[in-house]
């Protein structure tokens, strides 16, 4: 079987889907954050894959680089929020994050 | 200076608003004095408009600057016989209304002054704007200060009234905006560039069904403002809640913008659409006349009574406009001015008694003529003007409108019938106004609270005297006003009818309409002149044709 661009894209789409499902289904804030990381990673894969098929410059890889940086920042802040949330509610269950309601 | 007169008129109140904005709020005396003085200045400046050459239908004191070339938005203003007296009415009534509320507004005086100045500027702008974009801006700008005036200095239920006023007006004007944008897009499609200018857009020829919809959108906005039955319910609330000055401006000027809008925009832009809906509008006007009168009769609150009487009176104005006969329209314009003067005066008078008694309930009064003879006299005079007694201003307008409707060729067989029912409004006006007079002034003085009331003060007299004088001046010598309207009204009526003939191909109607149109300058009857269109646009792509043929949805 010849591996083509389409396969990378399909794989990336699937991982994205798994991440999305994880984010939607799981109620553990930590796991939800990890799901977000999954989705970001899948996007990275897409960028890198496209870049491989247009290697005149490094745009795709550069973007993936930036995404990694943003993901790191996001993880840092996200986890800080999780900690703060846990301190407030003594739980990491996202359903309890409902202070905005009403 | 004279070529910038209109800009000066619109700009002076705006400039004064800025000055007031930077005045310390403790200097109440200065703020009040400056506001009234600048309004008076505007009035005297506006007298310069009388110098115009109104023997022709062309716009006087025109001014035109391109604002946004890409979208054809211009600052283009001018007055003609139709708007002249309304502009003067605005500059005349605003200082009176402001001066009248000299003492009864003591909170947030600075903001009150700024609101009135902004309002005046916006009203004047709306009356002189000849560009739809400009008009729309002024039209909406008008709304804001008025809502503030009602909502801040109003009565107990002021917020309800202000929100109601705002929502009603907004619904209409948003639809109007959509129609304006469609119109401009259509202009672009036909000529290749944008324009918001009235004179340009008037040249557009649109299919009748499109005209009907566009007209309906415009008409809704204006009909709410007029207000026509059944869109009038915001008016009693707004009037009752608004402070005296606000009521006066609302009745005297703001409502006129609705009727003026029909004359200036809705009808010239969409004659065929307007003609299709004309009889229905006239019918609503007649219903409004009678219905407003009956509603007024039952009101216990004097302001509400006067508000409903406005519905009735503006029904007359709309009937006059939709008679599309020259005297009907002249009468309608005159009646707009008349209504501004008499109803403005009535609201001022109600304000006088409200200031003394803090109530407007008819049941609280009775026998006031005994303690306030001068007040009663002026009230009766204004009442008679409102009732349309000959020799007061109300009569001439109503007479011309009724004659216009009766002899209208556009209303067809409905004309005399409408005139018949509208004339019953004359009876009803006497019934409800005299009912109010009877309960307020005649009879024994039963309520002890009324015993010590003082008669008109000098300030109140000063405000009311010019109105009374005008009531008789217009009543006895209406030609002073009518003379300047004639050319514009004639052109309006002729243009409207001519475009209708060109536009409405229904042969049954053509016979009738041709009578009203005097062909000249090689424009024969019917559509012969359309052989050579003034502007032609070739659509280059065959594909476009293919799409059009398919109905626009390939």
């Amino acid at each position: 079987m010849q591996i083509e661009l389409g396969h990378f894209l399909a794989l990336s789409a699937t991982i994205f889907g798994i991440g999305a499902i994880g984010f939607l289904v799981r109620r553990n804030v930590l796991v939800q954050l990890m799901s977000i990381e999954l989705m970001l990673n899948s996007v990275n894969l897409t960028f890198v894959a496209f870049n491989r098929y247009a290697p005149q410059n490094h745009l795709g890889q550069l973007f993936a680089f930036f995404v990694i940086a943003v993901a790191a920042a996001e993880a840092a802040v996200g986890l800080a929020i999780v900690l703060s949330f846990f301190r407030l509610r003594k739980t990491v269950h996202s359903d309890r994050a409902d202070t905005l309601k009403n | 200076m004279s070529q910038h007169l209109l800009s000066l008129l619109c700009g002076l109140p705006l400039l004064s608003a800025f000055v007031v904005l930077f005045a310390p709020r403790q200097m109440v005396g200065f703020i009040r004095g400056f506001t009234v003085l600048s309004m008076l200045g505007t009035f005297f400046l506006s007298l310069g408009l009388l110098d115009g050459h109104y023997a022709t239908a062309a716009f006087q004191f025109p001014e035109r600057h391109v604002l946004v070339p890409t979208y054809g938005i211009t600052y283009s203003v001018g007055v003609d016989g139709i708007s002249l007296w309304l502009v003067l009415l605005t500059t005349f009534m605003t200082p009176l209304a402001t001066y009248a509320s000299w003492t009864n507004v003591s909170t947030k005086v600075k903001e009150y002054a700024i609101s009135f100045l902004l309002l005046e500027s916006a009203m004047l702008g709306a009356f002189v704007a000849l560009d739809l974009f400009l008009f729309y801006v002024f039209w909406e700008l008008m709304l804001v200060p008025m809502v503030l005036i009602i909502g801040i200095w109003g009565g107990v239920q002021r917020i309800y009234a202000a929100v109601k006023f705002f929502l009603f007006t907004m619904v209409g004007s948003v639809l109007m905006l959509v129609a304006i944008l469609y119109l401009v897009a259509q202009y672009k499609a036909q000529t290749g560039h944008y324009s918001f200018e009235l004179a340009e857009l008037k040249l557009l020829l649109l299919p009748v069904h499109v005209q009907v919809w566009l007209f309906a959108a415009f008409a809704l906005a204006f009909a709410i403002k007029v207000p026509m039955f059944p869109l009038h319910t915001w008016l009693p609330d707004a009037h009752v809640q608004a402070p005296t000055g606000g009521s006066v401006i609302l009745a005297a000027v703001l409502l006129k913008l609705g009727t003026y809008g029909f004359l200036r925009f809705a009808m010239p832009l969409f004659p065929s659409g307007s003609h299709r809906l004309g009889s229905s509008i006239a019918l609503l006007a007649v219903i409004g006349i009678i219905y407003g009168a009956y509603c007024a009769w039952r009101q216990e609150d004097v302001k509400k009574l006067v508000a409903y009487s406005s519905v009735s009176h503006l029904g007359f104005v709309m009937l006059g406009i939709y008679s599309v006969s020259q005297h009907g329209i002249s009468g309608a314009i005159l009646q707009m001015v008349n209504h501004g003067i008499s109803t403005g005066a009535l609201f001022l008078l109600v304000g006088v008694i409200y200031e003394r008694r803090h109530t407007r309930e008819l049941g609280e009064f009775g026998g006031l003529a005994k303690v306030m003879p001068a007040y009663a006299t002026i009230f009766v005079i204004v009442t008679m003007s409102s009732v349309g007694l000959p020799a007061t201003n109300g009569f001439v307008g109503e007479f011309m409108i009724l004659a216009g409707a009766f002899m209208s060729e556009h209303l067809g067989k409905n004309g005399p019938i409408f005139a018949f029912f509208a004339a019953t409004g004359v009876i009803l006006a006497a019934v409800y106004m005299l009912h109010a007079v009877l309960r307020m002034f005649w009879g024994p003085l039963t309520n002890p609270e009324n015993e010590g009331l003082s008669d008109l003060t000098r300030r109140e007299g000063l405000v009311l005297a010019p109105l009374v004088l005008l009531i008789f001046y217009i009543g006895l010598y209406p030609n002073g006003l009518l003379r300047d309207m004639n050319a514009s009204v004639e052109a309006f009526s002729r243009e409207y009818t001519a475009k209708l003939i060109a536009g409405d191909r229904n042969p049954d109607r053509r016979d009738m309409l041709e009578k009203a149109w005097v062909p000249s300058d090689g424009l024969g009857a019917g559509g012969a002149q359309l052989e050579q269109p003034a502007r032609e646009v070739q659509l280059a792509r065959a594909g476009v044709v293919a799409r059009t043929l398919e109905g626009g949805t390939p």
Partner: protein
Amino acid sequence: MNGDLDSKWLFAIVLFPLVGALVNGLFGRKAGRGAVHFVAVASVAMAFVIALVMFKKLIGLHAHSLGNSEEHAVLSFNAYEWFSLSNGGQTLSIPVKFVMDELSGVMTLVITGIGLLIHIYSTGYMSEEPSYARFFAYLNLFTASMLILVLGSSLPLMFVGWEGVGLCSYLLIGFWFENEAYAKAGRKAFVANRIGDFGVILGMFLLAVVCGSFEFADINRFAMEHAPALTSAVALGPKGTPFLVFPGITFATAATLFLFLGCTGKSAQLPLYVWLPDAMAGPTPVSALIHAATMVTSGIYLICRLSPVFALAPHTMAVIALTGAVTALLGATVGLVQNDIKKILAYSTVSQLGFMFAAVGCGAFAAGFMHVYTHAFFKACLFLGAGSVMHAVGAHGDADIRTLGGLRKYMPTTHWTFLVSCLAIAGFPGFSGFFSKDEILLGALSTGQLFSFAPWLGPTIFGMLFLGATMTAFYMFRLYFLTFCGEYRGGPHHDDHDDHGHGDEHAHHDPHESPAQMTVPLAILGFGAIAAGYVWVGIAHFEPWVKWLAPALAELKEEHGATAPFIAMGFGLTACFVGIFTAYAFYFKGSETPAKLQAAFPRLHSLLMDKWRVDELYEVTILGFSRFLAWFAAGFDKYVVDGLITEVTSQLVMVCSFITTRFQNGLIHSYGAIMAAGTLALTFYVVAPHPRPSMADPEGLKVKFDAEHGLAYTYRWDFDGDGKFDTEWSEDAAAQHQYADAELKRGVVAVFEGAAYGRSAELSELKPGERLHVSKRDLGPAWQVDAKDDSLPSIVADATGVLIQPNGARVMLGTTLQPGNVKMHLALGEHATIGDARLSVTGVVHPRLSVRNAFGQEGARSFDLVLPKVESRIVAAVAGVPGVAP
């Protein structure tokens, strides 16, 4: 003042009282009483003097014109143009113009003369009134309005006075406004008058539409010269194609009926008379002014003024005559039983006005107008006499005759003048009323051809009038005997009439004669009641009067036998003597019969006492219904209109916001779910196959196609639309094709152009033999050359193009106009213009594009392609409208 005044002074007649009113109204409150009544009396006196001078001039003119021609002798003065109605080049000017002719001359004299006397009388009667200046201001205004009414040259100007007197009656009846009943009576008068005014406005319009003028002179001339125009059925709209037609009702009938409605309001006839008896609420001089000199006579005046028009409307005349007769009877019957002096006089006025209307209704305009003139004297005298009586006994407004009596001794002047007036109104021979009443009866007797459609009408009216005249004589003398004869019965007991300033000191005194300001006018009027008739009357007939008025009135040929005047006179005398004698028997002798009659018919008596309960009837019917309507409208507005517009809308918004707020529940996962659903929908749309073809400009028959790209799409094309795809699935969206002639089908493109359409093109594919259907509307008004033949052109397809049979239509082939009935053929690529519609024959294909996505889903779409292309144009502007600057 010399005898040769310019007719400019006509304006002064009106202006003097007007200025008097203005001065008293503005400054009277501060000025002294002397100044006030000086201004008031002097202004009317000036008016009277000028009127006299003008009248003298008029007599001269009249004599002159009689000698020369049939020309109408008038004095006129045009002050300025009030306003004008102009439309489409036609202008109806309405000037402020005053005209004095024979008719208005007499009226002017009556108004100013009797008005002057009433003014003088009032200085005595109202001497204690606190609002002295206000009273005289109103009185002057009243006089001025009435003068405008009679001197105005056109209907609208007359209408100024017409409504002016309505206003003044409102103000004067409600003069003592602190009494709510009085104020209500004033309002009633105004509203009743307004109902009439409504009729006047519409009648005015109808006349203006037909006659093309508002001027009385023009209307009358038109009525005499173009009678058929007025006697044709009401048809409004352009000549030839009217849009509102009332068959059977003539213009004259409709207009005069509307005007008559106005007259019933102003002149207190059925059904609008109800305000007049209530108008007694005003001060007595005002009653005299309203009943005698002004206001109520204006209805008769209007009919006489427009008599040529009324003469053309026999049906209206019948209505007028009948209304008059019925009102005369109604007023008289009510007058029989009333006990209040002023009430009796009021109903006698209603009744007498009925006589006048009956007269003019029967075509006896001169007789009716004569009665206006004589009635003015004796009725003014009666009212002022009644005022004098009330003044004497300290009553105010409601002196009951049962408590009076024997006043003959105390107040001789009042007594004598009252007696004279009673004789006059009863029609006693030799007194002024005799002549006029006689003529009225004669008029009713000799209606000639006027009521040819109802011959019974004349005699019926005559009978009713005779009955009315008898009753008049009876109740007037009942009043006289009870008031002045016998012994004084103590007078009314009034403890509280603080609203009338002068009564108190007299309340418990014996009656006494009034001061000179009051008795002198009484004497003059009494003299007038006797002598007024003689001025105009020859021996036993009033020929001079008729001659005098002839130029101003319509002439109806009254054919009566030589005996008719004697029959009329006989009946008149009988009525007078029977009435007087019965009253004498019943009330002077103190018979028991009245009481017995009252006991015998208690219900009839109470019905008459309650004035036929007409007020009550109106109260429950019209007024009740109106109040109900008002109540209903106010409620409807509050709950239904406002409810529908604001409540329903706001509830709807509430419901929507309730639904949408369910989504904003603050839980992340529900937001996530919604977002997922949205993403899915978007993806579905993106992934689904969308064929969106486009094409470049064709070069001849070669066309380049392209399709919009999509996610993992493949494309294939069917260029000629035969159902088979011409290309294989390809990832390339672009394609091109060179069409062969054989692939094209023939089609016709019709472009309907014109102002109303903008532009709309319509593609029709016609198989050979098929016909293109067009309507008149499609072709526009320019399609026909010959208007006689309106069959539409036929457009039929054949094997090579279309065949056009114009059927008289104007067809341009290229740039040449084709003759009207020659068939022509359009081949592929050619075009023609029929009327305003453009017609081209073109080739048509329907290419088809199919698109497939990664899941193998397919979407296809065909579209129309017109080859060779048709040029289309858009009309952007009508070629200017003449005379309008853009």
